[in-house]
């Protein structure tokens, strides 16, 4: 049973992951177009071209803005709502939790279309409710913001559920000790709760980071990278180079840069988290967190 199960899993990983990664790596050193059968060695040309490509520079900037804004929005809103739900003063906790998690379990492609309709300048709900006259998706000043807002709406519920679970696992004694020492609720939140919540916050940030570096469906549906290059992000650029223009070699090179950036950012934020001063986690906690970080990729790899 052990030999067969592990053997099948490993064969699966080798054939469907390791071999493809090696093929992609080799392909990134080639001019590779499957439509006309080109497969010519060009060395590092794809990578050189990439770093000189103004579209890639723009896509990198947009990816950074999108990632930072979406993560900040998700974490801040998620934390505010989780803390509100944690409060003893709140009613209908179960009901609200169910409501906030709803967008998270709906299919992204369909949700993106609903938002495309919501942003419609003619009959979209957003302009009519707030009395605005904004052409959200076709005005380069607002298009990236529109994608960020949709993404935050779709994903904040995930942060609510995880941070709520984190809040419930804070030891009762810490909260009581704070009250006994005369801390007001403001101090209690910033000095006691937030530091204790740090591992879970870190988990949410890492998960989001990996997921948002790979996100492309919202761009595909809402704007197609436009207007101009105002919503061009790296993962959408990979899709376009690969399956619209069939530049497989160039697309593979971008994909490898993205993979390296993801790994580097994950490692960096990991380091940042574990150099945290007095509340530095013990060895067991760190190992647990390492496993969490591995699990954190789930969201991203699933899309």
């Amino acid at each position, binding site marked *: 049973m052990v030999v067969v199960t592990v053997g099948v899993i490993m064969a699966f990983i080798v054939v469907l992951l390791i*071999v493809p990664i090696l093929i992609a790596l080799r392909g990134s050193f080639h001019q590779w177009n499957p439509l006309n059968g080109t497969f010519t060695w060009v060395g590092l040309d794809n990578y050189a071209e990439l770093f000189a490509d103004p579209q890639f520079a723009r896509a990198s900037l947009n990816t950074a803005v999108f990632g930072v804004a979406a993560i900040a929005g998700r974490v801040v809103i998620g934390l505010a709502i989780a803390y509100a739900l944690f409060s003893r003063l709140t009613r209908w906790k179960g009901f609200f939790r169910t409501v906030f*998690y709803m967008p998270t379990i709906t299919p992204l492609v369909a949700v993106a279309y609903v938002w495309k309709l919501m942003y419609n300048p003619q009959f979209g709900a957003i302009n*009519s409710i707030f009395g605005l006259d904004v052409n959200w998706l076709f005005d380069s000043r607002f298009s990236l913001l529109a994608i960020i807002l949709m993404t935050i709406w779709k994903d904040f519920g995930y942060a609510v559920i995880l941070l709520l679970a984190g809040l419930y696992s804070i030891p009762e004694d810490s909260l009581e000790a704070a009250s006994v020492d005369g801390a007001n609720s403001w101090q209690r939140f910033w000095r006691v709760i937030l530091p204790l919540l740090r591992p879970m916050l870190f988990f949410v940030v890492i998960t989001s980071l990996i997921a948002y570096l790979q996100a492309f469906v919202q761009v595909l549906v809402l704007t197609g990278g436009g207007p101009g290059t105002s919503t061009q992000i790296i993962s959408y650029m990979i899709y376009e180079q690969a399956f619209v223009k069939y530049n497989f070699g160039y697309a593979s090179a971008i994909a490898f840069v*993205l993979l390296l950036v993801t790994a580097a950012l994950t490692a960096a934020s990991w380091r940042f988290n574990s150099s945290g001063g007095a509340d530095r986690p013990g060895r067991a906690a760190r190992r647990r967190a390492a496993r969490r970080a591995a699990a954190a990729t789930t969201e991203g790899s699933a899309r």
Partner: protein
Amino acid sequence: MSAIQKTSSGVPLTGRRAGRTAAAPRRPMPARTRAGVIALNTLLAVMGVFTVFPFVWMVFSAFKSNAEIASLDQTFFPRDWTMANFESIQTKLDFCRLFANSVFLSVSITVLAVYTSLLGGFVFAKYRFRGRGFFFGVILSTMMVTWAVVIIPRYTMFRNAGLVDNYASLIVPAAISAFGIFMMRQSMDAIPDEVLEAARIDGASEIFIFHRIVAPMSINAISALAIFQFLWVWEDYLWPYLMISTQSKQVLAVGLTTFNGQYSTDYGGLFAATTISILPVLVVYLVFQRRFIAGAASAAVKG
């Protein structure tokens, strides 16, 4: 997080806190607290409306005629309820067929992936063998690999193998899930080895132990994984778009983009099509939400 138990509201709590919450005496509230209650509940209600609104707007708009959707005088509820949008998307793209395809694929992949995850989780949680840590590390590290790196080689591999337009190309790559194996192992770690030993002494085979003892004890993790997995297949866009070329074999997520591409001004049809793609998943979630939220949160907390 030992001794996880669920309160009536379904949040996983530690035993101590659960007891305290249940026994909390009801005292009359001071005025300041009452203001806090109102403020908190208002915040949650506003956010709740913001969260639910796009779904409700989508459903009502699906029953409006195209003329009514585009009219300057917008109303929330349809003035004249009509089924025309649903009839039109059925005649234009055969959405019933796409819906059935998506259901078939989502259900079969979910069943398969949950079973292989259970088996993998069982082997890694309950057997000691050489290289166990190494193999598990390999499985975890595969979760870091982004779709962008492997999708091009997979595309060429499956084309060369003649699997285009064949559901095997959609089912095989999703048959084993690293996240699922990880999640099941986490959950099965909590099952005491004594339970298995007792069954072995009674003469139970390993197959029997797996199917009749370990699997039923993992029901919370199974439901959470099943809903996640179902959603991932249901919303997967790029891979079916690349692999399936016959329209009648296509899945819903791709059907939506095809529809929008061909009938870009049929907004009523798009509302109806997104309603069909979102509503069933939402209903499944609302039916199982209690167990699902507990399972989803504990996957991160227990880690």
